[in-house]
């Protein structure tokens, strides 16, 4: 059995706790990454989000381990023994320590503000090679393309930067395709925008993410990301179906 020192300020305690915190951080980090599978992965804008999320997870793992390991260690090592009626050690605080654990978090805040700023920029910027307007209303979506095509599903070409304009006609809604990452509210009286560059072909769902009344849960529309040729073909077919003469527009 390891013989633990009597004094609570003995170095040995901190060496043991330090080692335990290290092990716990690694274990916890992987555990958290496993139970927090960020499903945002199929757009250019999702990348920085996933990256920052995982950075946070490691910081969380460390801080959680730090507090919990210290706490559990104290609970076990400094528990009152059966025949011991003495009081705890008498110290009322330590200004150096308090300053340290004020300043280090402050530095972390500054670092994370900076990283957060850059990530935000990367997660919200993009081009407008494709433009589409999404209109949300209780409890469905329609999608208008600049050439006049109106559709019940949203079709976008893969790997092309798209600018989505968002408009609500009644109450606030929110445009969220989980796999793409960011969401953006639709607010009556104003037009909001978001940039998305989808990177994976497939069928997804846009789901309203802001409670908008009775059937909010079912305010869902299909989103298809297709190769560019397929997109052009779809668009041409829509034009024909809807009798829109490209020339007259």
């Amino acid at each position, binding site marked *: 059995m390891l013989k633990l020192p009597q004094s609570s300020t003995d170095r040995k305690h901190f060496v043991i706790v330090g080692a335990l915190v290290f092990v716990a951080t690694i274990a916890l980090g992987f555990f958290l990454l496993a139970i927090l599978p*960020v499903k945002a992965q199929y757009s250019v804008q999702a990348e920085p989000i996933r990256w920052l999320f995982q950075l946070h997870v490691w910081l969380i793992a460390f801080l*959680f381990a730090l507090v919990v390991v210290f706490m559990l260690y104290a*609970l076990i090592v400094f528990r009152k023994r059966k025949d011991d009626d003495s009081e705890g050690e008498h110290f009322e605080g330590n200004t150096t320590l308090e300053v340290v654990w004020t300043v280090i978090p402050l530095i972390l805040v500054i670092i*994370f503000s900076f990283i957060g700023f850059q990530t935000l920029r990367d997660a919200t910027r993009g081009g407008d090679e494709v433009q589409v307007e999404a209109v949300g209303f209780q409890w469905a979506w329609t999608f208008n393309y600049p050439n006049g095509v109106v559709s019940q599903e949203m079709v976008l070409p893969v790997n092309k930067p798209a600018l989505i304009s968002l408009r609500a006609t009644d109450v606030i809604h929110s445009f969220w395709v989980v796999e793409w990452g960011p969401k953006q509210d639709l607010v009556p009286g104003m037009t909001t925008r978001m940039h998305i560059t989808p990177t994976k072909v497939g069928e997804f769902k846009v789901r309203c*993410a802001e*409670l908008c009344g009775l059937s909010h*849960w079912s305010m869902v529309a299909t989103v298809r990301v297709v190769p560019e040729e397929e997109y052009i073909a779809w668009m041409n077919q829509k034009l024909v179906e809807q009798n829109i003469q490209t020339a007259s527009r």
Partner: protein
Amino acid sequence: MQLTSLGLVRGIIGYFVGLVVGMAVVMISRLALGMSAWDQEAGWVGGIIFATIGFMLAVGSMTDWLKWTRGVETPFHHGPPVGKPAWTRYFSVDYNHKVIGIQYGVTGFLLLLIGGSFALVFRAELADSGISFLQPGTYNTFLSMHAWVALASILLGVGGMANYLVPLMIGAEDMAFPRLNAFAYWINVPAIITLMISMLFGWDSGWTAYPPLSLRGPVGYQMVFWAIFSIGLSSILGSLNLIVTMLTMRPKGMTLFRMPIFCWAILATSIIQLTATQLIGLAFLMLSFERTLGMPFFNPLYNALGENIGGQPLLFQHLFWFYSHPAVYVFVLPGLGIISELLPVFARKPLFGYRWIALSSLAIALVGFLVWGHHMFTSGYGEYLRVVFMISTLLVAVPTGVKFFSWLGTLWGGRLTFPTPMLFTLGAISVFLIGGLSGPILATAATDLFLHDSYFVVGHFHATIFGGFVFPFFAAIYYWYPKITGRMYNEMLGKIHFWLMTPGFWVMSLAQMTAGTMGMRRRIADYDPALGVEPVHMLITIAGFVIAFSILLMIYNLFTSAEVGALAGNNPWRSRSPEWQIPSPVPEHSYAQPIAVVGEPYDYGLAGSTYVAMAGAGDD
């Protein structure tokens, strides 16, 4: 004894009389103006206002004030009402802060049970996908009611702890304004009745009541607006009273930095409540006016040219969160104060860094005023605001960290024992840690664009609220139970309660976060099984029921122990705090003579030191 001798019964009668009178007044005015008599929006608003006044008059909370206007003197009556059983004072207006504290606490606890049951109802619905027994409209009402009932329960629970403990801890006879104290408690009761009536009509916006949705739904909204307005009034008056009490009624020798640390937490809380609550009161009244009178504050309206001559929906969100973010610190600061209060007692050690903990409460309260916009990252407000609010929000982590580390310093080198209150204190730390650490990930705006309005947020705030309020509240109940009743609770049952509730809660909040990252939206009546979240939801529901069951054990414990528990004596925890130096239960006049402070509050382990000198009153 007649039923109507209970203030509560008279109040309820007054409520319904007022309701009818109010509706009649509105109808007559409308007829006089040449309109149709009945308009449900106007009718109900008039009804609720008169009903609230009717209740407050009939319950007797304004009787003394009305007498003063006529120059009649109203000396205090101490003790149970003459000629009636002692328990009746809890159902009538009573000016003793200990009675009012219990009234607050018990009402808060009841609301916690009601709000919790609403959650169980919709958790059962969400256990698997597909709509089974709750139709979406009912689902939305239950969800929204759950939130406001639970929030009201927290505000009342906080009021209970503050009213009972603060005067005792500073050795004061009572609060500064006992009548105002009673008024501030009783105004919650008609508000709760009104809130319950809203269920008959339904409402479906969640607690945030964002317009335009909240301008369109059923008339139940009006009841919510006015109920919350009254509860807000209670917060304002109650916090005013607490601030004055703490600043002016401390005993000789108790400088601010010698107050029990819980008082610092309540001071910070009260500053927030006194200054921020107006904003939500205003915001909800504006919604009511817009619904009733068509004043265009929030809903855009267009003229023939397509210009907006109406309102702006985002304005509401600013007003709402300017209160509701600081409010989350109202929910947790008192609980963090309880943690700081209990740790030294069970570690037999001084509170580590008393001044830092005290000032960190103030710092959290102040920074808390600058961060409201983190609830609006996706709202469409100016893009640069996202950066501003990201930085201010991250700053909150600094004073919060100070608390955690100081708690560790308090435990380190102690002689720790683990009765139920200590277990709940430690549980609170672990749970609040989960909540706190999931905060910054929502604060960096980019990640929030993904996580906002998802179950991740649900996991975050339940962890902060349980860690910052529910666990410490339970710790406080177990801890002061012997002081209130004179008897010990059942330790075995207390421990079972803890060991069911704590792991249950860990599982629940982590699973909620998992669901969020998998794409589960919050506030939906049914979800798409294709997301793969069904097993996670089953887990959340099971954990929720385990927590609920454990709370039933607590209630059973508290009820039975009041009869059969072992006699507690004055000071079963060997605390230095003044309230433990007097008999349990606390006598009508808590302190026979004024006390004096002669030492530091938490000098455990310093031989020969005491905190208070009790003139006259010895150890019995």
